[in-house]
Each structure stands twice: as structure tokens, then as C-alpha cells.
């Protein structure tokens, strides 16, 4: 059995990649993809601890999160397309009309 530390390490690595992606990239699609990475880091954590503890609740949560992610991706991409039609850009730092 793979020790729990490996799972956590993978999870933290995915979280770190996701955060770095969100903070550094300008393209909203890349940011969405980075959010997916963070969600999957959470999923790995949940499933790993579920196995360790021996209960299925964590895995049920993971399935919920996957569903949620799919919905979030659909809505997020829809917003991006609608926004692109208006401003002809997908760069996050040009989405600044609500500033101040």
C-alpha cells in the first residue's frame, strides 16, 4: 500500500501548480484549467484519506466535486465566450471595467 505521504505530496504539488497558474497566467482559460488542477488536488486528498480511514464518504465527496467542476467549467467557458464577443479578449488583466 502506497503510504499516505505520497498522496499528500502529489496533492500539494498539484495545488502549488494550480496556484502558480492562477497567479501568473493572464489567459482566463489557463486560469480555469488551473482551478481544475486545484480541485483535483482536493479530490486526491479526499480519496486517499478515504482509503486510509476505510470509509466511503470521502469518495462520495470526490464524485460531487467532479460533478461540480464539470458544471463550473461549462458556466465559466460560457462566460468567457460571452465576454469575448463583447471585448474580443480573454486576458484577465483587461477585464477591469469594475475596477474602483
Amino acid at each position, binding site marked *: 500500500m502506497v503510504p499516505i505521504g505520497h498522496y499528500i505530496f502529489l496533492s500539494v504539488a498539484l495545488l502549488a501548480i494550480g*496556484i502558480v497558474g492562477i497567479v501568473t497566467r493572464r489567459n482566463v482559460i489557463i486560469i480555469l484549467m488551473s482551478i481544475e488542477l486545484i480541485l483535483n488536488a482536493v479530490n486526491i486528498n479526499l480519496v486517499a484519506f478515504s482509503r486510509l480511514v476505510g470509509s466511503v464518504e470521502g469518495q462520495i465527496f470526490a464524485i460531487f466535486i467532479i460533478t461540480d467542476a464539470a458544471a463550473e467549467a461549462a458556466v465559466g467557458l460560457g462566460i468567457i465566450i460571452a465576454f469575448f464577443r463583447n471585448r474580443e479578449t480573454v486576458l*484577465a*488583466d483587461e477585464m*477591469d471595467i*469594475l475596477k*474602483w
Partner: protein
Amino acid sequence: MPTEFFLRNIWLIPLFPLAGAATMLLIGRRLSNSGVSWVGVGSVGLSVIFAFGAILQLIARAPAQRVVEIVLFDWVPAGVMHMSSGRVVNFNAQWGMLLDPLSAIMIGVVTGVGFLIHVYSTGYMAHEGGYYRFFGYLNLFMFSMLVLVLGNNLLLLFVGWEGVGLCSYLLVGFYFLRKSASDAGKKAFVVNRIGDAGFVLGLFLLLNAIGTLRFTEIGPAIEAGGFTVGNGVMTAIALLLFVGATGKSAQIPLYVWLPDAMEGPTPVSALIHAATMVTAGVYMVTRMNVVFQLAPIALAAVATIGAVTAIYAASMGLVQHDIKRVLAYSTVSQLGYMFLALGVGAYTAGIFHLMTHAFFKALLFLGSGSVIHALGGEQDMRKMGALWGKIPKTAWTFMIATITISGIPPLAGFVSKDAILAASFNARPVLWGIGFVTAGMTAFYMFRLVFLTFFGESRVPHDAEHHIHESPGSMTWPLIILALLSVIGGWIGWPESLGGSDHFAKFLDPVIARHAEVIAAVPEATQRATELGLMVVSVAVALAGILLAWFFYLRKPAIPGALAKKSGGLYELVYNKYYIDQLYDTMFVNRTKDLGTTLGAFDVGVIDGLGVNGAGWAARAGSSLSMVWDKWIIDGSVNLAARIVWIFSHPVRMIQSGRVSNYALLIVLGVLVFLGYYLRLTGVTLHNVLR
């Protein structure tokens, strides 16, 4: 037809012309000229039918029942009023019509002569602009005049009185583009206002004294009030009412508007300024004879002013060159005769002369209009002459009118004028003397006019000479009818001294009040011989005037000019109307203007300058102070508050970069801070977890 149909419908008589006037003034612009003629003349025609129907039915009654009063509605129900005399009065002026012998004669003259003049106007005004406007005003005048003579109380009479004044103003200024015409209209209006002020005061004083203005009640109320002959209040009332009469009937000192009123179209001069409106004063004094009888001083004033006006106006008529102005002064002079008659208590003679004068003076004016028409608008007699054969109908009828006014028997003017002279000879021989001289002057200036216009050499300019033409039938027929009336109109008052029975005076007699004291004071009836003697001398003086005119203007035309030069300024004085207009200008008009200028200066300087502009300046100064306060203190504090918030919000505002990645970074940092804090609290370390 029910019995006494016309007597029960006398209230309709003024309404026909009112309907005509309303039609003209509302939609007249859209009517054709013939439509205007039909409505304008037709409405007066209906009045004629109703008026003469009513007169005939009135005559058919017994003399004692010859009073018909139709009250339409309560007009001014003023309710209970407390008079300064202490009496309590329930005053109520009605819109009611009173037909008695006096108003019967008046509506007969007004509608009859008015109708003929309307017919004449369709010819005279045919080529003038504003045809519908002219007939609208003329109909409105007929309405006002009929209200004046038919009204059953003094207040309603005053409505008509003012109405005819308004129409006079509108019609004198009919050619309002000509400054002299609009000035003349204003003059007529303003001078009449002066008289009306007296009239209104008299009216108030009468109401205050006896508490009623209804004609049928005034006599009994005076009787009940115990007013005796010479009563001060009655004298004041009579004098004030007479002031109103001098304005409307052009007597000294308010006669000045009438000669200028000749600026109006000639039919207007005939209708308003000769036959009807100017006689309103005579009618009013006769109507109020019950008051005048109690005021010998007022009667003396009426008689004296009448006689003086008669000779004074006649003297100005001697030298005028404008054909209409001669007739205007003649009208003033004849009105003076009427007031002389009233002043000596011969009311029937005054009204009789009013009627015959309406016939022959309307005829004279219409005839002069026909002459003016024939000459293409020329009014100066120096540019006329020798028109006798060229416009025969006009010339013949004009001649008849001239003979009538000169007082040659048996024409109408002779009968009525001699009635006046006979009455005044009895009461006031001096005034009879004045009237006697005036009769000679009248004959002189009228025949001067006729000789200059119709006889002698033609002085018509060459280009006008070719266009001389007789007027159309619509103009000559009224002339012929009026000429007929001028001849026979006097016969209903044929004096008893000449074998007549004076139906006119007997008809009118019930209207005249008979106070017991007054009857006693009247001198015995004139001896028949005296009366005949007076007639002979007055005819003689008239013939002398005619002869003199013939000698001066046909036999030796050079004499008048030479005489004028020799007269040493007298001619100039009379020709310039005794400089009365200039005197009035200097004394009253210019003083009023000065007052207006002073008041205007006060308005501009003090009211506008100090008051309005000062207030404006103060408000502006105050507001600029207030503006400083607003701008620096109120706005400043608002801005200061905003600026403080702005300054303190600066660090926080910097976080709102608008960049998603910045926000994400902040979220992450926030999570890490809270996580680290939590881990520290629980004592969990990374090392523990990984182990």
C-alpha cells in the same frame, strides 16, 4: 295674430340688430358683400316692423294707458343697501323695456332713419374695405341706441349710452389707418368720458336720494320724498345729468369732438352724429324732466347753454369750407335749440325738433355724402360748384332739406323751430333773441353751402369733372324718402295758432311731469297773435339770411373775401373755431400730458429706478455674498469631507488593482496566513503531519 302682439314683443326690437352685429363681427369676413347687406339691413328692417307695429298699437290705446313695460329679467339685484341719506333701499335694476309716447317717438326715429341710412350705406360703402365691419358696428350701434331709448331704468339707459359712445368711437375711427381719423375717434371717446363722469355721479346721487332708478318709479318716489322746487339735491342731480348730456349731445363746453367726428364715413355722420346718438342727451333730459322741473337753476343752465351753443356753433358754421364741417356745426347749433326748448320747459317742442331735425339733418348729411361720392371724395366746397343739373336727385333733395332747416313754412323745420322760439319768447326773451339771430345765421350758412356746392361757377378740378355721376338707387331712394319726411314730418305737430291741433304735443304730454308748483309758475299760454307775430319775424329773418347768402355767394362772389380781410382778425378768429381747441389743448390736454409725463418720470425714476431696479441690485449684491458663502463654506466643507475620505482610502484603494491574478495571490496569501495561525493554535506542525 294675438292682440297687441308687437307691444308684448318690444324687447325683440333691439335684439335684431344685436343678432346682425354678432353675425357680422363673428363670421362677417366669410360672407359676401350682398350677404352682409342682407343681414345688416334686414335685421334693422325687422326692427322697423316691430317698432312701428308697437307704435301703432300704442296709439290705438287710450291716452292714459299708453305705457308698456316688459321686464325680461332681474339684471342687477343689488339687494338691501344703506344709503348715506339714512334710507334702506332694496335696489334692483331690471333688464326691461319701457314703451311710452316718448320712447315710441325715439324708436320710430331711430329705426326709421337708421333703416334708411343702412340702405344708403349699401351704396355708399360698396367699394370700401371692411364692408362687414362697417355694418357690424352700425348694427351694434342700433342695438345700443335702442337699448338707450327703450331701457326702463337709468342704469340700462347708461348701458346704451356707453354702447353708442363705443360705436361712435369705432365708426369715427373706421378709417383707422388715417391718423386724423383715429385721433378724432379718441377725442370723441375721451370728451364723452368727461360728460359721462357727471352722468354717473348724477345717477348715484339720484339713487342715494330716492332709492330707485326705474323711470316709472322715479316720479312717485320724488313725490313721496317731499322734494320741493329748488331742492338742492335735485338741482345737483339735474346739473350732473346735464353735464352728461353736454358730452353726448355736443353742447358747450364739450362740443369739440363733434366737428372732428366728421372723419368717419358720411352715413355714420348722418346716423350717429346728426340723427340719433347726439340727441340722446335731449332724450335723457326729457326722460328725467320730473327731476329737472324741480331744479329751476338747472333748467336755466340748460336753456342758457343751449341758446349760447346754438349761436356760437352757427357762427363757426358760417365760415367753414368743408361741407361736412358746416353740417357738423349746424348739428351742434340745432342741438342747442333743442336744449333751449328743454330749458324753458317746452319738452314736447324739444323732442319735436329732435324728430324733424333727424329727418332733415340725416338728409343733409346723406346728400353731402352723395355729393362727395359724385366728386370722388372731395369735401372742400371751394372745389365744388354748379352741380345742380349734374346730380339732380341729390340736388333737389338737398335743396328741400336746406329750406326745411332754414325754417320756411310749411316745412317740418319751420314748425318745430317756431314751437321752440314761441316757448322761449314766453319764458326767457333774451334767449329768444339769441335763437332768433341764430335762425337767420342758419338760413345764411345753409344757403351759402347750397350756393357754393350746386350753383355759381364750377370750381371742380378738371380730372374730377368727367367722373361726376348721380349716385345709385340705393343712395337716392333714402334721400327721396327723407325729403318727403322733411316736408310733411312737421305736420303732425302743426300748431293750434295756425289752425292745427298739435297732435304731437298731445301724444307726448303724459310723459311730462306736472308738479303743482310748476304749473302755477308757468306763464299764461302765449297769445295767438304773439305767436303769429313771432312766426312772421322768424320767417323774415330766415329770408333775410337766404337773401344775404344769395347776394354774397352768387351775385357778388368777391364780397366774402374782401369782408374777411377787412374784419380785422374777426374772420381768422371764427375760422379757427375761436381757438377753443388750442385753448383746451393748452389748458387741459397738455396739462394732462404733463401730468402723464411727470408720473411717467416718477415711474421710470422712482418706481422702476429706485424700487424695482434697486430691489434687483440689492438682491444681486446679497446673492453674490451668499454665493461666496455657498462656494467657499458650504461647498468647501463638502469637498473637504470628500477629500479626507479620499486620503484615508488611499492604501486600501491600492489593493483594488483590477487584476484577477493579484486577487488570487491575495486569496492564497490570506489562506496561508489563516492556515498558519490555525496550525500554530492547535500545535500541529508540518513535521508532525508528514511523519
